[in-house]
């Protein structure tokens, strides 16, 4: 099984690189997961990651991209609630990639 | 708009069959398969409800499931026995199908 090492601790990942145990997540884990895909997390990335984690905490699901886009727009403004902005931050797909770094499961309905 | 309701649970064990009868509309079809075929037997404590449904709906039973349980000779009058091809025809001839699991 794949894993990453963060601060001396081995953290298991599933076959697609998502955390096996959601409780393993820390901000450092997010940084390491992003670095593994040559991404350096900026405050703009973190704004979305934190938003996703709050959404998951409240609703127990990672939202579909359409839902994420709408919700980000409502919370953070229309200049951020659009696919162009979200894809500029997460080119592999805002749902998949941001959920991975955020320590959440792949969004339901994401293929 | 006609609907085919498929039931597969015994009315003596689950409420699915009863719920189906309560929600089916006049002109709809009801097909009993698997364990639900015990609902086709005449003289049971449930047969009155099936007879009432037959006043404005058509009730079918899958013959193979009835035979498997040795109940072929005990079916109440008015219930139509179908084979697997008849099952397919029923799904094709109705606008929608609802399974009462």
């Amino acid at each position, binding site marked *: 099984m794949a894993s990453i090492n963060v601060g001396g601790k081995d953290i298991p990942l599933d076959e697609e690189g998502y955390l096996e145990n959601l409780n393993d997540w820390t901000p450092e884990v997010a940084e390491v997961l992003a670095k593994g895909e040559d991404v350096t997390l900026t405050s703009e990335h973190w704004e979305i990651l934190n938003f996703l984690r709050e959404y998951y905490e409240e609703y127990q*699901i990672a939202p579909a991209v*359409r839902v994420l886009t709408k919700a980000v727009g409502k919370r953070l403004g229309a200049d951020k609630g659009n696919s162009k902005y979200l894809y500029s931050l997460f080119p592999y797909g805002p749902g998949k990639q941001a959920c991975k770094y955020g320590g959440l499961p792949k969004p339901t*309905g994401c293929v | 708009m006609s609907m085919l309701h498929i039931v597969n649970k015994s009315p003596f064990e689950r409420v699915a069959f009863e719920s189906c009868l309560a929600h089916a509309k006049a002109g709809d079809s009801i097909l009993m398969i698997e364990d639900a075929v015990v609902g086709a037997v005449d003289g049971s404590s449930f047969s009155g409800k099936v007879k009432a449904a037959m006043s404005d709906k058509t009730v079918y039973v899958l013959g193979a499931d009835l035979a498997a349980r040795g109940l072929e000779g005990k079916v109440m009058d008015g219930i139509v026995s179908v084979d697997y091809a008849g099952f397919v025809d029923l799904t094709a001839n109705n606008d929608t199908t609802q399974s009462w699991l």
Partner: protein
Amino acid sequence: MSTKNFLFVNRKAPYGTVYALEALEVVLISAAFEQNVSLAFIDDGVYQITKGQNSKETGMKNFSPTFRALGDYDITKLYVSTESLAERGLTVDDLMELTYEDADDDYAEKPSIILVNREEMAAMMAEQEVILSF
């Protein structure tokens, strides 16, 4: 892709079997494909949306908060059987408050739960193009 009226009929209590959770996942997937999705809660299905669920000690995930996200997915019609509630000694006050924001009405918050009797439930079912049961 054409849009169809999808109805998901929930008739089983949560946790004891996997039906309720599986249904919810399929509901979210179908909504992601922008279909016109409604839900019905009949028989033990009404237990899926009771408030105050706490599955912690069972080791199972409490997925009831996810029903509150359905409004975000434009799923705004949750039909609940009044007879099923009454048979179980429940009233609408025992259910979670489920709402959606109406985009056509200045995003006013509106209730998603629609209480219907058997006759109304049957009439609503007759208007569906696809019915999936869990």
